[in-house]
């Protein structure tokens, strides 16, 4: 498709040129937002796949509701679905509590067996020749394109109800999510709140069936929540963000099925929301993969720089002479790094004004560099003293640990450490510990 066509279809789609398009779009956005918000609770309770099991468990309820009433009215179907979701949730609970089977098994059994019952009933209805059943199977994968005014009203009503319940019980839900023991001690009705939370999830599954279908409903619950988690540590922000991500993918999914006539909306919603998830996973600041790799690289660089400064400082310690330039092979012998790495670190130190190249291939510390080297050496040795004296670890075992801590100890901790150890003069190996804050080198004389 050409870019112009894409743009034109965007415009036609989002100006709601046809009322049916509007219903589909509104329905999908509301559903995505409601499911995204509610899914956060399941995600944070570490029961992400509960939504999957419950969505599958809705199918027999839909079939029974149809068998009993003979109608496909959305309210009837929703009630049937919610009822059988509830039975599914109770069964999962019963299996985990009363038998030796674990939760994952309980979820899997409820998911497959309830779904099997649903399929058995569905095929039974289909083979019975009842003309009214046509279209009952759309609850498997959903058919957002078939949403009409009444469906959207019910969807909107339920979505608003869900938002109200979450807003009213926000604090209570938050407590049972993060500290159920405290909730119990504070006298909150934990059991009843958990039932309310499960009902909220069941309702979200119920309204999702028409648009996304039972098979893919799980994604609309888990994926927006997992994506939102990368961006924030606050529950309120996470709920809002998950709702936005779910809503956006609802709109994108509706658009995709509008552009390509036969394309199913539900799967496209799922693909869109997963796209947003992967973008968050890679790019979110703080918890995203790129940000974490960047931090790791920065830390590695800092470690390499500080290690080299300490080496140069220690070279000078022997004769209290920090002015003699050191050659690359000398440095290489002390530091177990490759030549390339060493050159790169030296270049970085040179740019930072910590090391100067006295002659080609010969390096010496500047005053700033010597101060930094002294500080790293000091922290290293203080930590060795601490480990041997306070934790009574043998002196020959403390070096590796100090090698790591010297890069992370803050000046404040360094000061407290020295104070606790009563300003030791020498480390366990007999080397002198450089004093704090004093540059023990006179440069360029």
């Amino acid at each position, binding site marked *: 498709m050409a870019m112009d066509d894409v743009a034109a279809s965007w415009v036609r789609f989002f100006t709601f040129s046809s009322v049916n398009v509007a219903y589909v779009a509104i329905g999908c956005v509301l559903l995505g937002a409601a499911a995204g918000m509610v899914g956060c609770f399941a995600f944070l309770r570490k029961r992400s796949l509960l939504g999957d099991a419950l969505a599958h468990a809705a199918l027999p309820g839909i079939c029974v509701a149809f068998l009993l009433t003979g109608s496909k009215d959305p309210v009837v179907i929703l009630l049937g679905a919610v009822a059988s979701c509830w039975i599914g949730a109770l069964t999962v609970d019963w299996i985990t509590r009363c038998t030796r089977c674990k939760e994952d098994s309980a979820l*899997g059994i409820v998911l497959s067996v309830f779904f099997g019952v649903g399929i058995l009933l569905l095929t*039974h209805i289909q083979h019975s020749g009842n003309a009214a059943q046509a279209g009952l199977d759309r609850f498997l994968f959903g058919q957002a394109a078939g949403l009409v005014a009444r469906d959207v009203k019910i969807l909107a009503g339920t979505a608003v109800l869900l938002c109200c319940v979450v807003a009213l019980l926000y604090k209570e839900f938050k407590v049972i999510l993060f500290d159920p023991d405290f909730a119990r001690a504070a006298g909150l009705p934990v059991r009843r709140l958990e039932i309310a939370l499960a009902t909220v999830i069941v309702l979200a599954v119920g309204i999702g069936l028409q648009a996304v279908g039972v098979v893919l409903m799980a994604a609309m619950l888990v994926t927006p929540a997992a994506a939102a988690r990368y961006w924030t540590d606050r529950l309120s922000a996470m709920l809002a963000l998950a709702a936005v991500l779910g809503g956006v993918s609802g709109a994108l999914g509706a658009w995709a099925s509008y552009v390509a006539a036969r394309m199913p909306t539900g799967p496209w919603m799922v693909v869109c929301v997963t796209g947003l998830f992967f973008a968050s996973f890679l790019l979110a600041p703080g918890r995203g993969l790129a940000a974490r790799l960047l931090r790791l690289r920065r830390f590695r660089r800092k470690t390499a720089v500080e290690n080299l400064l300490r080496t140069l400082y220690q070279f000078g310690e022997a004769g209290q002479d920090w002015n003699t330039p050191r050659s690359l092979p000398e440095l290489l012998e002390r530091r177990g790094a490759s030549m390339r790495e060493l050159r790169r670190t030296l270049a970085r130190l040179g740019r930072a004004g910590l090391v100067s190249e006295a002659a080609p291939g010969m390096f010496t510390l500047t005053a700033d560099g010597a101060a930094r080297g002294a500080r790293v050496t000091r922290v290293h040795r203080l930590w060795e003293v601490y480990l041997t004296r306070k934790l009574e670890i043998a002196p020959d075992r403390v070096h590796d640990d100090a090698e790591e801590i010297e890069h992370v100890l803050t000046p404040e901790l360094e000061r407290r450490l020295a104070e606790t150890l009563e300003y030791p003069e020498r480390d366990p190996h007999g080397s002198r510990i450089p004093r704090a804050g004093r540059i023990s080198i006179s440069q360029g004389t």
Partner: protein
Amino acid sequence: MADAFWIILVGALAASACGVIGCFLVLRRQAMMGDAISHGVLPGIVIAFVMTGSRNIAPMFLAAGAMGLLTAFLTDVLARRGRLQSDAAMGVTFTWLFAVGVILVTRYADAVDLDVECVLYGEILFTPFNRFEWGGFDLGPKAVWTTGAALAANAVFLTLGYPKLKLCTFDPGLAAALGVRVALWHYLLMAFTSMTTVACFESVGAVLVVAMLIAPANTAYLLTDRLSIMLAIAAVVGVISAVSGYLLAYQLDGAIAAGMTVTSGALFALAALFSPRHGVVTRAWRRVRVKTPG
């Protein structure tokens, strides 16, 4: 009647192939991995269909097996690199792959002789008509051969790997300390789960695969505390659910694979209630007997 025999045989072979491998998934608390893989293989199956234009078994095996491993691998990556809980990682991965699969099925609906119903509950009813012919001889339905091969492959894998798998399952820490490559065995198990899923997928569909991986293994788990016996019971329970499921579906005129799923669930419920040692009712009964002496 001969048709019924073939259908039940395919169901029984698929059920026991899934049942034995499912025992390990259940014991390792990765039961939902069966669900994830059986959904995740869908795009592989469709891609193989579209590329070869036929239901040739070899490319389907490769593509779907690769997808199954990709599901396990992506779950692993998201859980470790993405710092997600493993169930959330699984949920994100397999729903995405399944959605892609459904989109591909819709996109290539004309080219592919495969619809979403077949994906969900298979075409076990038609297995007797899809014959395997070799050198002009009729060697019976194809599905019997694929599911039978899956069962044989699983039997060989589990027999050869039994000690190491057992160790990795019950004490991964000790296994690692003894030099067993825990990750390798994990992925081998996932590979065989994918293979089994694909082999059974065409005839019995995704639903029954999940049920057969999880339900008989849990039934067996309720009946014994020994791994070797658990494997045997799971296979037998699988066969029983296949036979009784066929009869149930026949009575109700419904999908046969769904019938088998339902009976496997019923057998699990029976075991949960009346297992000699772990059943809910038997335990309650024992308590009553202890309280009322004489």
